[in-house]
């Protein structure tokens, strides 16, 4: 098609010398232990500062438990999050951004059913400005009429956009199917609820729920931990309350059962989303289940991906993973597949779940998954932002940096028997429920035949 003369594919795949031996791995250096301060300051805020000077930046992660049971909570919380950084008593929206931009800074707030998260970064020498803008928003966010009004409009448009995305449709269906009307299931408000939120509602919610006690602030970067904690104390001195941030009510256990088929007329591709109850990182069986999950579908070299992507071409993306919930964890299996092969892909996904318990991971599978789990801890925490995210995720469930440091040892110690037991107990097909979103007219005949699916 291009070169005038060229070899055949067969010729290209062979050299005179033939296949070569795979080189061994070298010796692995350990990551240097960073200096860390982990403390609770006077207002009850948990502060963790890690020095990681690779680039002259600082990463900031604030996590405020932010649950609510009022049916309007989701709408109020979304409006609050979208308007939190749009102005304070002394700064208007433009000034907030102007001050941040001057130090290469960014701050953004998002909310989910569990927590309000503010994330950002700045050039390291701009940390005082970053903290000042954050403190200003936490203590004196203004929720001006015009800003709240505009954010409500944009939020409504974003909700409309989100709900036109198949992945969001599938996620909402799964949450309702797994958790019914538990507040955890409501990840996005209705447009008409957003319309009813007034600036006074956002101010009242801020007063009642944007609280330091029980919240977490993580800073990682080219900074000195001790003086940074002092700077945080000074900056956040005006942020206080006797009350604690609001934790999500305990979630019901996910029980296995038929998956639900959700009709999406004319869809060219379906979303398969399965879920089962799992165990949190604090459970002694967690490292075994972590490896069992990798072997099932937790990375590319897994049984699920090698089956439904690399062997059968049913999907571009299939994976399984842990979702850490406030009171525990669940396992999730996701695959997007063309309508014509969706029932077959569901069949194979279930087959591989069953097989994992019945034909336990081989030694080679276990060793590969173990090395991946250990290695990916290194690579995913090698950057400031990766480390900040990991430290924050662990700290919100009560785990310290020591857990991260020691986890490779736990992974190394897990036995094949423990992994087989975890696979049989937690990845059994009978434990799973889920949803399939797609064109029911195309999918129903085959799904009816294989069973285990509630049809509309």
């Amino acid at each position, binding site marked *: 098609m*291009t070169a005038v003369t060229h070899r055949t594919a067969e010729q290209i795949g062979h050299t005179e010398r033939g296949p070569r031996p795979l080189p061994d791995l070298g010796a692995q250096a350990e990551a240097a232990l960073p200096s860390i301060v982990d403390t609770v300051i006077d207002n009850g805020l948990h502060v963790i500062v890690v020095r990681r000077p*690779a680039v002259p930046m600082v990463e900031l992660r604030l996590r405020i438990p932010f649950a609510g049971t009022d049916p309007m909570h989701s709408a109020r919380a979304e409006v609050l999050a979208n308007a939190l950084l749009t102005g304070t008593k002394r700064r208007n929206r433009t000034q907030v951004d102007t001050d941040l931009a001057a130090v290469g800074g960014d701050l953004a707030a998002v909310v989910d059913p569990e927590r309000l998260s503010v994330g950002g970064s700045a050039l390291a020498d701009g940390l005082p400005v970053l903290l000042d803008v954050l403190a200003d928003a936490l203590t004196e966010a203004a929720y001006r009429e015009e800003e709240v009004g505009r954010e409500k409009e944009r939020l409504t448009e974003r909700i409309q*956009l989100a709900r036109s995305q198949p992945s969001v449709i599938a996620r909402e269906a799964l949450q309702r199917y797994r958790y019914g009307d538990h507040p955890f299931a409501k990840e996005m408000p209705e447009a008409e609820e957003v319309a009813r939120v007034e600036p006074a509602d956002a101010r009242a919610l801020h007063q009642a729920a944007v609280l330091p006690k029980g919240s977490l602030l993580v800073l990682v970067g080219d900074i000195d931990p001790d003086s940074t904690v002092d700077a945080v104390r000074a900056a956040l001195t005006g942020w206080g309350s006797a009350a604690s941030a609001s934790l999500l009510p305990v979630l019901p256990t996910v029980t296995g059962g038929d998956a639900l088929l959700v009709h999406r007329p004319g869809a060219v591709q379906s979303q398969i989303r399965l879920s089962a109850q799992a165990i949190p990182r604090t459970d002694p069986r967690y490292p075994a289940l972590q490896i069992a999950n990798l072997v099932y579908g937790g990375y590319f070299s897994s049984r699920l991906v090698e089956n439904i992507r690399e062997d059968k071409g049913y999907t571009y993306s299939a994976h399984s993973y842990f979702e850490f919930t406030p009171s525990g964890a669940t396992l999730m299996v996701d695959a997007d597949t063309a309508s014509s092969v969706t029932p077959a892909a569901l069949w194979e996904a279930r087959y591989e779940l069953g097989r994992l318990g019945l034909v336990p991971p081989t030694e080679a599978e276990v060793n590969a998954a173990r090395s991946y789990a250990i290695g990916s801890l290194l690579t995913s925490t090698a950057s400031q932002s990766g480390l900040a995210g990991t430290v924050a995720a662990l700290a919100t469930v009560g785990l310290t940096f020591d857990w991260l440091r020691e986890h490779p040892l736990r992974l190394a110690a897990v036995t094949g028997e423990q992994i087989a037991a975890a696979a049989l107990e937690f990845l059994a097909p009978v434990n799973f429920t889920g949803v399939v979103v797609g064109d029911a007219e195309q999918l129903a005949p085959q799904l009816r035949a294989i069973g285990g699916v509630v049809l509309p």
Partner: protein
Amino acid sequence: MAAPELHRFTLPNGLRVVLAPDRTAPVVGVSVHYDVGFRSEPEGRTGFAHLFEHLMFQGSESLEKLAHFRLVQSSGGTFNGSTHPDYTDYYEVLPSAALERALFLEADRMRAPRITEENLRNQVDVVKEEIRLRVLNTPYGGFPWIWLPPVLYGTFPNAHNGYGDFSELEQANLDDCAAFFDTYYAPGNAVLTVAGDFTVERATELVHQHFEDVPARPTPQRPSFAEPHPRSELRGTHTDPHAPLPALAVGYRLPDPSTELDAYLAHVVLTGVLSDGDSSRLQERMVHREALVTDISVSCGLFGAPLDARDPDTLNVTAMHSPEVSVDRVLGVLDEEVEKLAVSGPQPEELARVAARWAASLHREQDRIVSRTLAFGAAELLHGRAELAAELPELLSAVTTEQVAAAAKSLRPDARAVLVVPAAGGAQ
């Protein structure tokens, strides 16, 4: 930013090598950039460069199908590849103990990839699923990178869909693959980049050991993709059955970075002045003050990254707007704001803010070893200087008010493309 320590050499077979040691974390990044992207695929074979990228993961002389994935991951690493207009990259990020293994894997597939009919058919199916996932089954799929170029450009290389048509993907055969590999995947047409925790001596030795006997082949003459700038406003419409709101994209031609780097960088700064943050010109007025658009974004490069292609390259404006606001109203305000900058340029504080944000975002990007490795590799391949990736913050902070004003002046309404995406169901 502290200048990175860069070392480079060329093997006798023509392979260019960039080493960027950094001992701060015990991880390494390895990438190979081949000098072929979707602009080089022939008519009748749209999507072929990307399909071929998939095939490069399907085994090589020393590695069975699936072995590449398994070896990278069982070494604790991650991998991927991506196809751009002018290049295709492959990379691994791993614990530093696996450096030699990564070099072995890349050398083996550069020397002798195993391309079979069965794997070709399998990967055509996988690529079709990728296109369904990213384009056909999602709102604004492929917007603007697939749908804007055919409005702005007139020649096949610049205008066609790099993901490809299903019918053309299905027609791809083994002979196409063999010809493509022999033509474009020669060692002299590639850049190998190694970044992270290693010594230069050891990495140099390993690179020689594994890549030196990849046979040299002729490297193709790189074609020019130049075409004239538009001489009027070109308009097109893309129908998106999932779009909840109307959207529009505006494309302008950028200066050639190989001959007018300063002017190109002035456009990069201009994009920041226009749309980076709530205090930027377009966000402040169009999103917040006048509520004309839900979001608006201005960027250099089809995928939003500057200097990621050779000439011709595109400056893109994308906006989503409510159905009550007309396309011409959005364009009118855009033109007013660009005109203001063309006349007076940005304020010094605005320039300082844009420079600080660019510096910060580039530092963050380079802190991730995968981005750092790929940035050095792409800069070496496309612009002949890996250093450019590290120098960008300083270069951007040196851009002057006058240069930005000149850049704004070049965004002419009578030399651009406007792509309109009506909302599904007919609301404009």
